[in-house]
């Protein structure tokens, strides 16, 4: 056992004499008086002498004990075996890395104190000047930074850096932070150096549950310093706000606001979207610990970029910054559809006829041979289309550049040039729907896959069906009901799909190493019925069926199915809804932007750009890319040419930062850590568990004084 203040013990020894001194100093001056009845007094005094003597001894002992305990408490004895990292003197050279979590969750307030403030105080103890300790500081968020440079024994610079640290609107990349710490611990010191890693964080489950501590050197002593309150503070948060479907001018757009209720009370949450000079409000009940999706609809009058904000109404919780979220949205004009087919528009029972009628149903009398049809969608068809037929044998192939969605239905044999043009369009964000019905389509698809190279990883290879393979009477057996286009049917999917019988199409063979999830539907002969595969900024879908031989066009599922599929392919070009702040940014700008001439990036008015501004716009082969080492703080960032916004994106706090539930001590300390020693201290525990005896000693001291008072009362005559 050692003590923090040895001088207090010496002072305590001297202080033991205080009761005696106090006794003499406070002793009343006796009045001398002659008394005739002194015999009576002497008898009584003799009677009470033993009682008074016992009282005096008790009082003296209790006072002495009280002084002694107070002195020992003042000396602050360190009792027990220290575990983890100690802030006391070190026995051998020590290399210490202090990792402080500065992610968004550290801004959570409890009793008016932010977690980051508690973290600063805790971390400062480990950065106090200690002989023999070289330390480094890592402020960990999305992009953990060992801003302290090399480990040094002069900790003043790190303390200054720590004092300036504040919670950043970023998620925590705990694994990257540990890797940084491991590099520092491995790269410095000698084999005999004691290695310590102090982690000061709120230890959110969402950040720390999957972290592996094995990256740290095996002899590292890990000290967990938790600043999380005992009970997770109540928090409501907007986890996301995304438009559903294609955002198109003049058509209702459905916003889905996802709200998380990280509290123990179910409540009704209300949110408001402010965008395009409109205020849209929605509310819905949200269970405790659950999530709710609030839905509002909005119609934009014109195409273009819009910036706005969604916020929770009437909420005062522990983490205020996740109660609002920036929005950036591109409203498109009505899409242009190109139907590439050799079939005549006059053919009523042709596959292309059904496709045309499904995607542009208002055209009553389509004009064959490069005629153009246009009209508004109806019967739930989400596409308000401008559909144009192209006959590859007669029309100029260059015209496909105008199409937002290219539909190939019985296109005949395509050459390499045509395939290259198609692949280029898809890479730039256009959609391609290939209705594979003829054996030649297998050749075309193979050629497309070859020309696309690694950018198109089809999950299956399409093969011409052999004569032994009967492709009729097929039905769907395996559907991905939770993704478009089948998602739109909901619980009615089985009723819609069961009557369907398919014929024609191509045989398929699974390609190993590709994503099985890209196969959205499978026939009963295990051949793929519908495949959707990303390719660059766009996507290609293959519907493996001969529509004219199937009952699908006659089914009520046909129009919504094809419409959803077209919407999915058209929506691939939509920019990301939000990007997380602080993380490396690499975004392709939309296709029409081919060069950086006159482009500039404009950030939120309240945000201050770093040394590198908001990033860099660079021209690459496939267009213009926006790169930044770290995305800016939450807000809307616009790329403008002149005063015209050509691109916009919003940065928002990742949803995992809003879930303030923390890892338990056991879960945190038990992972398969190779560290020989692990220490954990919660925010409720004293800074040094060894240094906790002083409180008990003070309590004993006070108890002695109380007992003394009781003794004096009891022995009072």
């Amino acid at each position: 056992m050692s003590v923090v203040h040895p001088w207090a013990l010496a002072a305590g020894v001297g202080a033991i004499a205080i009761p005696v001194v106090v006794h003499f100093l406070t002793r009343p001056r006796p009045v001398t008086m002659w008394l005739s009845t002194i015999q009576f007094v002497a008898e009584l005094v003799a009677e009470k002498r033993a009682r008074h003597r016992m009282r005096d001894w008790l009082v003296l002992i209790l006072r002495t004990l009280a002084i002694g305990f107070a002195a020992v408490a003042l000396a602050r004895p360190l009792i027990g075996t220290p575990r983890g990292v100690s802030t006391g003197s070190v026995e051998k050279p020590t290399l210490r890395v202090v990792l402080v979590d500065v992610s968004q969750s550290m801004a959570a307030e409890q009793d008016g104190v932010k977690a980051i403030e508690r973290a600063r105080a805790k971390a400062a103890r480990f950065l106090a000047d200690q002989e023999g300790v070289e330390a480094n500081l890592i402020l960990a968020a999305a992009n953990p930074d060992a801003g302290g440079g090399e480990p040094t024994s002069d900790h003043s610079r790190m303390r200054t850096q720590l004092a300036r640290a504040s919670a950043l609107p970023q998620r925590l990349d705990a694994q990257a932070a540990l890797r940084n710490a491991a590099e520092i611990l491995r790269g410095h010191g000698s084999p005999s150096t004691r290695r310590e890693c102090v982690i000061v964080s709120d230890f959110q489950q969402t950040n720390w549950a999957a972290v592996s501590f094995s990256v740290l050197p095996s002899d590292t002593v890990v000290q967990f310093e938790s600043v999380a309150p005992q009970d997770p503070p109540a928090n409501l948060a907007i986890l996301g706000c995304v438009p559903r479907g294609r955002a198109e001018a003049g058509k209702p757009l459905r916003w889905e606001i996802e709200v998380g209720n990280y509290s123990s009370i179910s409540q009704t949450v209300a949110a408001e979207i402010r965008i395009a000079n409109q205020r849209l409000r929605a509310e819905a009940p949200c269970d405790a610990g659950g999530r709710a999706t609030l839905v509002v609809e909005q119609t934009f009058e014109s195409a273009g970029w819009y910036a706005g904000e969604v916020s929770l109404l009437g909420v005062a919780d522990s983490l205020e910054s996740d109660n609002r979220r920036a929005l950036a949205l591109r409203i498109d004009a009505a899409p242009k559809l190109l139907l590439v087919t050799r079939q005549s528009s006059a053919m009523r029972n042709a596959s292309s006829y059904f496709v045309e009628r499904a995607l542009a149903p208002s055209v009553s009398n389509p004009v064959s041979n490069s005629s153009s049809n246009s009209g508004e969608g109806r019967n739930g068809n989400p596409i308000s289309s401008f559909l144009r037929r192209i006959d590859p044998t007669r029309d100029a192939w260059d015209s496909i550049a105008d199409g937002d969605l290219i539909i190939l239905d019985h296109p005949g044999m395509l050459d390499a040039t045509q395939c290259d043009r198609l692949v280029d369009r898809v890479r730039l964000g256009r959609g391609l729907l290939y209705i594979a019905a003829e054996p030649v389509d297998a050749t075309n698809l193979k050629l497309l896959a070859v020309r696309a190279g690694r950018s198109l990883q089809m999950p299956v290879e399409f093969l011409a069906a052999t004569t032994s393979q009967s492709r009729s009477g097929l039905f769907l057996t395996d559907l991905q009901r939770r993704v478009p286009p089948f998602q739109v049917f909901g619980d009615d999917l089985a009723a819609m799909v069961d009557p369907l019988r398919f014929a024609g199409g191509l045989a398929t063979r699974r390609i190993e190493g590709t994503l099985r999830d890209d196969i959205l539907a499978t026939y009963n002969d295990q051949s793929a019925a519908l495949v959707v595969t990303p390719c660059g900024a766009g996507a290609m879908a293959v519907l493996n069926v001969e529509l004219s031989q199937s009952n699908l066009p006659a089914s009520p599922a046909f129009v919504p199915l094809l419409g959803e599929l077209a919407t999915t392919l058209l929506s691939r070009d939509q920019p990301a809804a939000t990007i997380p702040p602080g993380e490396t940014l690499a975004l392709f700008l939309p296709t029409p932007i081919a060069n950086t001439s006159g482009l500039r990036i404009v950030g939120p008015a309240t945000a201050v750009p770093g040394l590198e501004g908001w990033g860099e716009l660079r021209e690459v082969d496939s267009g213009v890319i926006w790169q930044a080492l770290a995305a800016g703080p939450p807000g809307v960032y616009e790329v403008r040419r002149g005063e015209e916004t050509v691109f916009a994106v919003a940065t928002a706090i990742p949803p995992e930062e809003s879930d303030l539930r923390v890892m338990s001590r056991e879960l945190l300390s038990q992972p398969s850590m190779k560290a020989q020693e692990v220490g954990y201290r919660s925010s409720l525990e004293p800074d040094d568990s060894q240094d906790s005896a002083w409180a008990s000693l003070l309590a004993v001291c006070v108890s002695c004084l109380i007992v003394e008072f009781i003794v004096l009362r009891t022995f009072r005559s």
Partner: protein
Amino acid sequence: MSSLEHLRFTTRQRVDGAYSGRHLSRQQGGSGEFVDFREYTSGDDLRRLDWKVLGRTGRRYLRLYQDETNLSCTLVLDASGSMRFGGLANRGADGAGSKLEYAQFLASALTYLITQSQDQVGLAIVSDALRTWERPGADPEHVARVLDSIERLTTRPATDFSGGLRDLFLRTSRRSVMLVISDFLFPKAEEAFAALRLFRQKHWEVVLLHLVHPHEERLPAGNAFRFQGLENEGRVLCSPAELREAYEARFARHGDLIRAMAMGCGCDYRRVSTATPYLRTLSTFLMDRSG
């Protein structure tokens, strides 16, 4: 004193006096008031024989008369050290208001009143022994000597009251009235009362005036006192607050003990507080005795 001149120190008992006086004598002399006849028995004084009755009836009867004589009173003053106690005002001892002073005033007044009634007064001062002994007398020189002795009365730190009384008992021959003025704070009060019992056995009338100072009845207020004994008992340091109740009970028990022993001896007991003016005390005392 003039207000007390009409009062007399009397006794209900028959007394032996040397001279004629106003008190009933134990002797049935021949010159007093006739009270009865009694048959003559051998040895009776023939001078009291009623010769006329003998002449008429031939029977021998004696005429009985009640003789009256003067009173002989012996004042016994306690001159032990405890009598110096005078309360808080004098840090405990001597000065105005002490028990000794009160006893002096009381004794002087009694001397005056008794001698005014043509009775005899004697004085015995007892401390560690019988220090002063003035036989009862009534002549002015004697009275002056007694008063002078009372005035020059000094205390001694040691006390042997019983020894003094026994010495006094040996020196007295004729029964009388003994008036003891004391605080009765003796180490061994039983022995003092044993000595008093000797007087009672010789049919002395013993009157005890128990002097009590009000500051003796309860301890003074204060945190710490160093009490010093008046009869070489040493010093006691204590906190009166811690002893107050026990002390008062002890003192009351002492008073009850003295009274009980006085009654047991057949003595007349009177508790006298020095807070009461001695003339009032004397007035009450004399009126009570005169019935």
